[in-house]
């Protein structure tokens, strides 16, 4: 069974603080993704990566950075957290093929106060 593990599962951060969300996958997938999920917006792509050392902007990258130091790990970084970044964040991984499945982690609930 493909595994994507996110940490922490819950996080409360202060406005202006730095937040790092971590993701680890044991699927040996090349592609990794960060999405945020908000009521009324569904899943929106923030950043993605197609291999170690690569990061690409998704549809809503402003205010976020990403880091892919290895095949297994993909981090999402909020340098200056704002209340508008309060959301549930999902990491996912997938293979290179067009029709390969994308596997999601259980999510991180981030609250910025």
């Amino acid at each position, binding site marked *: 069974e493909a595994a*994507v593990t996110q940490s922490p599962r819950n996080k409360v951060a202060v406005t202006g603080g730095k937040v790092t969300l971590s993701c680890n996958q044991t699927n040996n997938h090349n*592609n990794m*993704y960060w*999405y945020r999920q908000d009521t*009324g*917006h*569904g*899943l*929106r*792509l923030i950043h*993605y990566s*197609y291999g170690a050392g690569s990061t*690409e902007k*998704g*549809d809503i990258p402003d205010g976020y950075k990403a880091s892919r130091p290895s095949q297994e790990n993909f981090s999402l970084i909020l340098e200056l957290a704002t209340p508008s970044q309060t959301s549930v964040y*999902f990491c*996912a991984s*997938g293979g*290179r*093929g*067009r*029709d390969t*499945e*994308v*596997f*999601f*982690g*259980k*999510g991180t609930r981030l609250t910025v106060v």
Partner: protein
Amino acid sequence: QQQVRQSPQSLTVWEGGTTVLTCSYEDSTFNYFPWYQQFPGEGPALLISILSVSDKKEDGRFTTFFNKREKKLSLHIIDSQPGDSATYFCAARGTNAYKVIFGKGTHLHVLP
């Protein structure tokens, strides 16, 4: 921006009934359409998917239909069960195989 439109936003059906969810898209380069199911507190998980070369795919009680001309797809759940209560997302992937674009989701409630 590429979009995948999904309807309805919320749906309630009785146990044993048929559920129909629909999606439409704009980008004609989309060629792979997965449906994901999400339970509360969990991440989305692949339910069923279809390639643009097909018009129908069936998996047990779940069937997805694809209409290339109209740029529409649908998910049919027959004999709906309370355990099917979840949020369902349609999604699309195209020439940029790295990007999977999701609809806003449908909250399905199946009443016993």
